[in-house]
């Protein structure tokens, strides 16, 4: 479910005024933990999931796990 490494995002963290960085984070679904690279605020650690990702690859993975 990795995002494209070259991907940039126009979004910045509003609380910390920091630009987001691609970092390894853990996502959890149906009892399984997976490590993926997602855009994150380096300071407060908030992760952004943009619409394309949520309704694209992420939904695909969710459905795949649900059908298992």
């Amino acid at each position: 479910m990795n995002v494209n490494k070259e991907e940039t995002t126009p979004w910045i963290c509003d609380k910390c005024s920091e630009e987001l960085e691609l970092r390894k984070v853990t996502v959890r679904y149906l009892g399984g933990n997976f490590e993926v690279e997602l855009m994150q605020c380096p300071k407060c650690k908030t992760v952004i999931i943009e619409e394309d990702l949520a309704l694209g690859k992420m939904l695909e993975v969710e459905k795949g796990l649900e059908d298992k």
Partner: protein
Amino acid sequence: MFEKYMGDMNFISLWEVMDKYGVPEGNKIKENKILTVHDACSTRYNKEIQESIRNVATSLGYKIKELKFSKEKTKCCGYGGLVYFANREQSKDFVKDRINESNHDYLVYCSMCKDLFIDEGKKTFHILDLIYSNDLEKAALRKVPTLSRRHENRTLLKIKLLKELWNEEVNDLIEDYEFKLNIPDNVQNQMKDRLILLDDIEKAIDNAEKNKEKFFNPQNSHYLCRFRISNVTYWVEYEKNKDEILVKSVYSHRMEVVEE
């Protein structure tokens, strides 16, 4: 359902009671309008309910025309087994298949059947419309309430019942937020398709504004915030104007991001 899971329980459906004791005749029609009955799947094996619906309609002056597949062979309206949520396209196909079986208006006795048929443009009466509606034409095409409106209606009903039947006042069921939302039609459609409630959007924005938990896009001055409610994370993109918040997009995912 009662027969299957609570075999010892004696029960009688409202429709049978109405059939037995009669219904108000204020809505009785003079001409013999023909209606086609679509039986609810949950009554497939309950002949008494099926007959009482037909009897009530006949007593109000309607003539019943049966579909090829009715009673114990009734078809799915497009909601059964929650196919509406699990596979929207399949559900739409079921609805279209069923409503094209007759040119006559339909008579149903399940609110889901009614909502789905009307949503695809079929004139459909609920049996209660025939008995109580002040405007039958309007009732047969009354649009499906949005997911948020259904949610709100249930809350308002709960408040009313608690107050009128149990003398309990509840004040914490409807939140008052400091912001005013403007949700354009395209976003309303997203909410419908993506099963997102107004309540979810309000909670996300409220949290974002109070705790500054949001992202900012300097290119278009939009904000993007997220809020997790039980098993779903809701995302809202919005623009802050002088006296209102304009919602640009909403979406959700079920996967949980562990932010640490």
